[in-house]
């Protein structure tokens, strides 16, 4: 089961006066605590953070809500961002890049991309998994003309960064529904 958290609703319940903007560390920390609580209560293996109807997000808030959540939920919990506009994506990308973190983003058009720090190999492997679906390192290597070691290395890195699911040597896109 995927837990979807609409951030504008969390924001509304967090602030005493209405605001569409995710700004300041104080607000970010309060929003993140609400998200963490929801994750704990539902025990869901994956969380979608929905940014639709949110205004701007500043760097401090991006750090508190997204970067810290990724660090605190390390392990087998997957986080996907959705409903981001370009400016929000830019702020989050900047914050994650600096901390060597990554996250999957479901774009408004339906495709997936990565924000944060990824190598060209990791990015190519991520796109291949999104395009062709679940597969092994051998399959990826064959499709894009890499050695198996190179493909395995890239896919394993993606799994460690929680950008793909890994099970019994097969790498699959994160569940989006």
């Amino acid at each position, binding site marked *: 089961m995927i837990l979807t958290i609409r951030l504008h609703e969390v924001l509304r319940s967090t*602030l*005493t*006066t209405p*605001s*569409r*903007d995710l*700004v*300041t*560390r*104080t*607000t970010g920390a309060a929003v993140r605590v609400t998200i963490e609580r929801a994750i704990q209560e539902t025990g869901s293996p994956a969380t979608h953070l929905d940014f639709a109807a949110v*205004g*701007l*997000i*500043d*760097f*401090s808030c991006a*750090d*508190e809500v997204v*970067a*810290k959540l990724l660090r605190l939920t390390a392990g087998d919990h997957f986080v996907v961002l959705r409903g981001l506009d*370009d*400016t929000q994506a830019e*702020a989050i990308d*900047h*914050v994650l890049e*600096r*901390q060597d973190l990554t996250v999957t983003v479901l774009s408004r058009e339906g495709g997936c991309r990565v924000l944060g720090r990824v190598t060209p190999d990791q990015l190519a492997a991520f796109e291949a998994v999104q395009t062709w679906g679940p597969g092994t390192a051998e399959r990826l290597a064959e499709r894009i003309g890499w050695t198996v070691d190179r493909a395995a290395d890239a896919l394993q890195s993606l799994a460690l960064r929680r950008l793909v699911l890994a099970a019994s040597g097969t790498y699959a896109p994160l569940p989006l529904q």
Partner: protein
Amino acid sequence: MRVVTVPHYLDEKAFDTLAGEIGAWPPAGRLLFDARATRWSSPFGFTALLTAGEALRAQGAEPPRLAVPDNEDVSGYWAKAGFFEHARSFFELHGRIPRRPTADASDVLLPVTPVRASQDVHDVVGRIQEQAARILTSELHLEARATMRFSMALSEACTNVVEHAGTGGWVAVHAYTWRRRLGRRVVVIAVSDGGVGFRQSLEPTEAKKYGERWGDAAALEAALIHNVSRFRDPGRGQGLAAIRRFLTAWNGKISIRSGTARLAIVPPWDDDPPLEDGLAYFPGAQVQIVIPAQDLAAA
């Protein structure tokens, strides 16, 4: 009563003179800030002058006096900028104080506004976006998404007060034509607080690394150039870095005065020195961000 003359043209540089006239901090005896002959103030001037009054009161000093500008146009503009509304709390005001005009679409994008807590930053960001969009795109010729980036920069500058100053502060945003230096329209953000300042904030974690070099200038360098924060958290120190990044893209300028030093990221159109040390002491930190109209001919 000691008289501190408010310069005719109260901007970031002229404020150094005013700080020099205040002298050692906290100043002995009661002060009279004489602004009767003052003809203009930048947002920096408004926010820093309020900081002076607030910091003096926080030190337990007798309420300083402020003689307001004689010129009615000038005092009218000070009223419109929201200065007197807050100055009443810290200064004993002398002179004719015009009533603040009702809000309209003007060059005062954000009148002087207190920044005390996170909610204040939300209010500032929420209030300014519509006006900022109009000025940034139609007058400064910036791309549409510059409005959001501008709001992010404003938010980060205000958040620094909430997070680090240990006291409240002030923010103001104006648009005007900067004839003296640039001959172009600019939007200027000024954020000022009378809190602990960069040196004291960073001293526990950074002073040893700098050894004898440690001081206000080194603290500003650590924060603005090296993105250092007093917190160990790896996500800290990104706010100023982000502001710098946006300003580089816009050919803008940021300068921060704290204690006795000022550090600036200086764009090609400006000839200020990047670092000035040994200035007259002034408490807290004063940030000024200047975004110029884009040079369409050069683009």
